[in-house]
């Protein structure tokens, strides 16, 4: 009957996403915060360390970081890079250039409002995030090298 403190509970990804959808559908929650996992948003977000503050679904714009169901039961938190009609194309900052995922508006679980990186809040409309985003875009040709170095440190 003791409550655990300071422990990390891992939950099944799919049911967690359903839960977030449910919370947003209820309508009175404006954001949901959780720890990210996976390496696809490196070098900004580190799995198990950083968090994302997710806002409810809306029409995304290029540059938005979206959590969407890209295949049945598979979810990804990536940056929108192209919009073709009602299809959105996104790619993780830390993924190879050829690795693109597509989704539709219905597949959106939420859209990043802010990140908590190394304990510091970084809203997506902050200068820091905007600067990082344009720098990362600028460095696209060097991405492979940077990520390879990053993996080694």
């Amino acid at each position: 009957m003791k409550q655990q403190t300071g422990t990390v509970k891992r939950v099944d990804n799919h049911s967690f996403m359903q839960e977030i959808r449910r919370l947003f559908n209820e309508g009175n929650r404006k954001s949901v915060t959780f720890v990210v996992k996976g390496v696809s948003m490196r070098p900004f977000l580190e799995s198990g360390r950083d968090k994302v503050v997710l806002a409810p679904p809306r029409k995304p714009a290029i540059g938005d970081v979206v959590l969407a169901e890209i295949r049945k039961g598979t979810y990804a938190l990536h940056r929108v890079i192209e919009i073709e009609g009602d299809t959105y194309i996104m790619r993780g900052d830390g993924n190879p250039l050829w690795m693109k995922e597509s989704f539709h508006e219905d597949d959106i679980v939420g859209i990043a409002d802010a990140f908590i990186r190394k304990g510091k809040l970084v809203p997506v409309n902050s200068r820091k995030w905007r600067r990082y985003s344009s720098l990362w875009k600028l460095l696209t040709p060097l991405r492979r090298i940077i990520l390879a170095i990053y993996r080694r440190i």
Partner: protein
Amino acid sequence: MKAKKGFELQNVCGEYIIVPAGIENVDFSRIISLNPTAAFLWEKVSSLEEFTIETLVEALLEEYEVEEAVAREDCLLMVERWKELGLVEE
């Protein structure tokens, strides 16, 4: 003592968690989770105006096969934690 108002017990992916009602952000990285027994007791007392350790012990004995002394000890420990977490007040 009494259970503070404004906490919702929810079952998320098979875990019982307590989330503040009316707060616009749900932070899954800092959440109070209860085991099923604690959740059962929280349900019991959160609807009451006031409760005592006896209320909890009685509820526990009714629902579970457990020695009264053990139940009381567990309830005391749990209530201490609830106080620390700010879920109950005197």
